[in-house]
């Protein structure tokens, strides 16, 4: 059996943790056990990132029950090269694109860290804000366009299509600059 931390070395240490009656099994190699102080008897060292790392692993620690929590070893960010395992280990993203690359795993993490919340409800930067407004407008226009086509109001549909193109062009330019 391979180590659940590094997925490279043979697991030589096997632990069973029982917290509030919930049983969790760990199978890791000696090297990773040393890095994760919590497994070493008598060691109390622990940091926010270790704590977080525990959360990020979620119940992925139960290897015999493949579920939606199964993480393919290839899951990694193409921009900065950070793998999900690395992210789970250090508890930090390597770049903004990691948020997209690990998107499918993030909701449960944010829920635990932020009291059940997963969506931003605060400040919007002024400049990015205008393009976010435009994107919303774009969605509405596209819906309207569909409706016009269904109703065979082709003149209105053509007008709407032109407005959509204009906004899309602006958004495209904004991205390049």
């Amino acid at each position, binding site marked *: 059996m391979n180590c659940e931390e590094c997925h490279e070395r043979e697991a030589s240490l096997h632990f069973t943790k029982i917290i509030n009656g919930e049983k969790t099994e760990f199978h890791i190699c000696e090297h990773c056990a040393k890095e994760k102080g919590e497994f070493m008897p008598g060691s109390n060292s622990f940091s926010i990132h270790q704590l*977080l790392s525990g959360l990020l692993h979620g119940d992925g620690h139960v290897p015999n029950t493949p579920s939606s929590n199964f993480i393919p070893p290839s899951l990694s960010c193409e921009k900065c090269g950070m793998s999900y395992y690395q992210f789970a280990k*250090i508890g930090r*993203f390597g770049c903004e694109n990691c*948020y997209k690359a690990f998107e499918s795993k993030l909701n449960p993490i944010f829920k635990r860290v*932020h009291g059940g919340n997963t969506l931003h*409800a605060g400040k919007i930067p002024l400049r990015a804000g205008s393009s976010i407004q435009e994107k919303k407008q774009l969605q509405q226009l596209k819906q309207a366009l569909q409706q016009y086509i269904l109703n065979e109001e082709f003149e209105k549909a053509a007008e709407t299509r032109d407005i959509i193109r204009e906004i899309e062009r602006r958004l495209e330019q904004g991205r390049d600059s």
Partner: protein
Amino acid sequence: MSLERFISDAISPWMKREGPESDIVLSSRVRLARNIHQFVFPIAADKESAHEVIGSISSCTNEEETEPLEMLMMEKLKPIQKRVLVEKHLISPNLAEQAKYGAVLMNDDESVSIMLNEEDHIRIQCLAPGFQLEEVLHKANEIDDLIEKNVDYAFDEKRGYLTSCPTNVGTGLRASVMMHLPALVLTKKMSRIIPAINQLGLAVRGIYGEGTEAQGNIFQISNQMTLGKSEEDIMEDLAGVVAQVIQQERAARKQLQDALKLQLEDKLFRSLGTLENCRIIQSKEAAKCLSDVRLGIDLEILPGISKTILNELMILTQPGFLQQYAGEVLTPEERDIRRATLIRERIKLENR
């Protein structure tokens, strides 16, 4: 250098002003975490991209509309200089020790510090004396808007401001207040208040010292959640709890004065005596006595001593400052002697 001169240089100018509720709230702080679009975060960045980040921020804060900011590069500072900045809470220990290409921008009165290439590209920090959360948020937002005029932030419609650590995503806002709560500790109420505050999604920490055993009875209360609530809501929740704790502390102080006046006076005068006469003192004992003396000042039991003495000496008696004052590296034993001397001399200044 004379002691007066050293103190006046060492204490940040903003700390010398008095703020609202400053008998209990020592200071208010807001920190905004921001990253720049298209640059990888500092933990994954190489030298070139880190320097580009510093370049782009320093150029946009150099314009005339901002107050002048001084830039310090971490790689050019000596360990003691960095330690002093940490002890003044102007930079984080992480920036001083870990960040490879870290830098900090500070304004004249040191109430604004912008850390670059810490865990995130940009960490805007604003400080104010007393209980002034709204004011510090306003100030931090101003700086945020100014920087945003010149750079694109890493921002996502769904997730908000994207940060390196998942605990900061969304608003990137961490707001905190430093509170002096001696009566709640003396009356053993603090151990019940802390879990209650935690349940509201706020963290309570001893700033100096570990866990609930806060040195100098100084506690920091801060928000934990950054995602799913607006900045205003986060601040309101925190301010509401802080206002409650202020009330509780005031009530506990009154209770002590009514029920145990003589015992209280005895304790506070003894602590003043210790500080006036010590020849060797460890930081823990110094913090305890300073807290007592400050309580004595607030309750008008020890008249004629300035209120800022606790804030000043809690900062000045830390290892970095003691060594800077001495101008050399000191062993812990030597520090205890220096600490005693510095405290005695500082109190002598009061009695003139």
